[in-house]
């Protein structure tokens, strides 16, 4: 009896590894190998374009501590992530809940909120450069109409990063909406029905029923959203190149600058590894705090 149980366990284990194998082969070549190399590179003086590398030990990491710009960039990255992710997820959740109804015209709404995701970042960035133009841009025109002060947006080191945050909410709310909508579709509707018959109000239903029910996906979206904030690279690259006064320089862009523009692959690798450690720490924190509270419908 117990040996057949052990055999079943072993078979399950082998099956699991077999199922993971296709992914692991590709990950090994195109993810793990580059990461290992990047750890190796970070301990060397590596010049892009030059096959020779020189041992430096910890110097690249020590440089990092002394690098004024690195700390500024880190702050910008944190600001961007901590504003964009909560805001777009909240907008996305409200949209998704509204979209989940069978109201007429929802197909149009869905397209209206999702299409920004499809606009290539090169074009979207250029588009918003125009929208944000201080002189003739439609956004300032709208602010004037509303009686609000005009802003210099991308030309102002205080407003450039918030401007990119606003644009990201436009671009990515629809993205998170789509994922959450897919999750809502999995929620049995009789649960709502019961709640409604019990007279639970709309707001309470959202907090006490909808949110817990989609918590696995919400958890996914929070983690992925954080990592997704790497995408800001595209807009920084197209719109501001990190300026003015480094106010929109973020870690992914700074890594790109160091690695490809300054050819300083060693330092870029050290930055990337530092980022990886920070993100791993963050994910660990999220999985310990939020992950424990996630409720899976399929599990008891």
């Amino acid at each position, binding site marked *: 009896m117990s040996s057949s149980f052990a055999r079943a366990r072993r078979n399950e284990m082998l099956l699991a590894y077999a199922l993971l194998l296709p992914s692991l082969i590709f990950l090994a070549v195109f993810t793990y190998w580059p990461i290992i*190399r990047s750890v190796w590179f970070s301990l*060397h*003086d*590596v*010049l*892009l*374009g*030059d*096959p*020779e*590398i*020189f*041992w*430096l030990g910890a*110097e690249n990491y*020590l*440089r990092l501590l*002394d*690098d004024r*710009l690195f700390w500024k960039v880190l702050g910008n990255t944190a600001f961007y992530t901590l504003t964009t992710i909560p805001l777009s997820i909240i907008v996305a959740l409200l949209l998704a809940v509204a979209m989940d109804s069978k109201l007429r015209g929802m197909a149009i709404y869905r397209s209206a909120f999702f299409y920004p995701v499809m606009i290539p970042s090169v074009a979207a960035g*250029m588009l918003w*450069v*125009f929208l944000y*133009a*201080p*002189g*003739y841009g439609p956004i300032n025109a709208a602010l*004037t109409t509303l009686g609000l*002060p*005009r802003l*210099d947006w*991308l*030309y*102002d*080191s205080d407003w450039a990063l918030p401007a990119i945050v606003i644009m990201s909410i436009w671009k990515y709310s629809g993205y998170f909406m789509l994922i959450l909508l897919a999750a809502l579709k999995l929620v049995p509707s009789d649960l709502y029905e019961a709640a409604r018959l019990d007279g639970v109000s709309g707001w309470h239903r959202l907090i006490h029923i909808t949110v817990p029910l989609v918590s696995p996906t919400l958890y996914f979206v929070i983690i992925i959203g954080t990592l997704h904030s790497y995408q800001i690279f595209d807009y920084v690259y197209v*719109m*501001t*190149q*990190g*300026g*003015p*006064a*480094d106010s929109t320089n973020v870690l992914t862009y700074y890594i790109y*600058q160091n690695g*490809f*523009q*300054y*050819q*300083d692959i060693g330092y870029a690798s050290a930055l990337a590894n530092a980022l990886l450690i920070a993100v791993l720490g963050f994910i660990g924190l999220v999985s310990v705090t939020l992950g424990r509270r996630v409720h899976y419908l399929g599990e008891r």
Partner: protein
Amino acid sequence: MKSTKPNMMRRRLLATGLAAPFVSAMPGILTPARANDTVKLQFMYPVGVSGDINTIISNMIAEFNATHDGVEVEAIYAGSYDNTEQKVITSLGVGEPPALWLPINSSLQTFLGLDALEDITEQAKADDIYDDFIGGFLDTAVSDGRLYGLSYQPSTPVLYYNKDAFAEAGLGDAPVTWDELMTAAQALTIRDGDALKRWGLTIGGGWHDWMFEGYCRQNGLVPWEADKVLWDRPEAIEALEFWKKMVDAGCMAPASTWQGSANDFMAGSTAMLYHSTGSLTNLRTSSPFEVGVAFMPKRKQFGASQGGGPIMIAKNQSDAKKEAAWTFARWMTNTENQAAWSRATGYLAVRKSSWQQPEMQQYLAEVPQAEVAMKQAEYSGAFLQVPAYSRARDNLKSAIDRTLAGEIAPEAALTTATADTNREIQRVQRRQG
């Protein structure tokens, strides 16, 4: 960064996996096709002006291939100047560079640092290059008296101005000196209460360090030497103080972006604009008003530094390919091609003879603005040709931005940027030493 030890212990390591084991791996690209001995060349180029440039270059290449037996050039669009440089350097790293490429001239020391460039001094001397090329343009590809490229699409920043706005403000000609510039900018600025309607002057962001070098030159300083930058000299500090004065007076935009500033000008949100000559055709044809072009105003003298780039030839390739590459580079920069290229783009033709062509004379008669940058080129020199130029540029841009945003005083900003950059240059040079 202080931790850099002068006599640090260093082990030379062969970059396992970076290059050596693979050089022989890829068939087809390294070995030229055997069929009738055609030499195949790859040419990587950026597109700096507008999409049509791609068509023009494709047509030029097609014409070259049709008229030259035994050579076949493949033109590879490689994105912006930065992208092009990165693509070439990445290929260099795996020992497989393209035969020729067209980078920005500031990258000269970067490529020399990688020992990537073919010295073409002798071929050029045997040819008419030294006679017919306009001296300032030729110099952008010269290091230690040796020539490493044929200037192909040089540009300088110029002052664009909105003639309608000038007429409105009762101004006549474009300003000639810094003081006149400031007076004009103030007269052209329009405010409606607190709200700004039009800036007097905008300096194209993203490349404002390039304009700033022009200001240094106008103030009598070339702000760099072979292995260091000199932004902490009084002439440079004075230039930045002048910018700050204009920003404080409310007549100059404290920051902008490259694309945005061109748009601002076309939309009438700024009356004067410092931008590249390469933008001439676009600004002229897209603006709903008459566009004037003038020298950048002077202080002690006129001055500008050159953007744009030369065609460079790879050192690491067979002699047959080098020879074919030279033929191609020579052809791209011949009298007619340069004249045609200049008319189509607004870049400056590099040859004196190109400017003598009847078509060119006719074009200048129609578009007299085109000649301004050409004349200004007399006062121009190469742009920031130091090792680690890319980081140097970013340091300077950041220093300027922070000064104009009021975060830091001009002198402190430039002193820090200079120290940071020079330390970086030393770090890069340590590899060679």
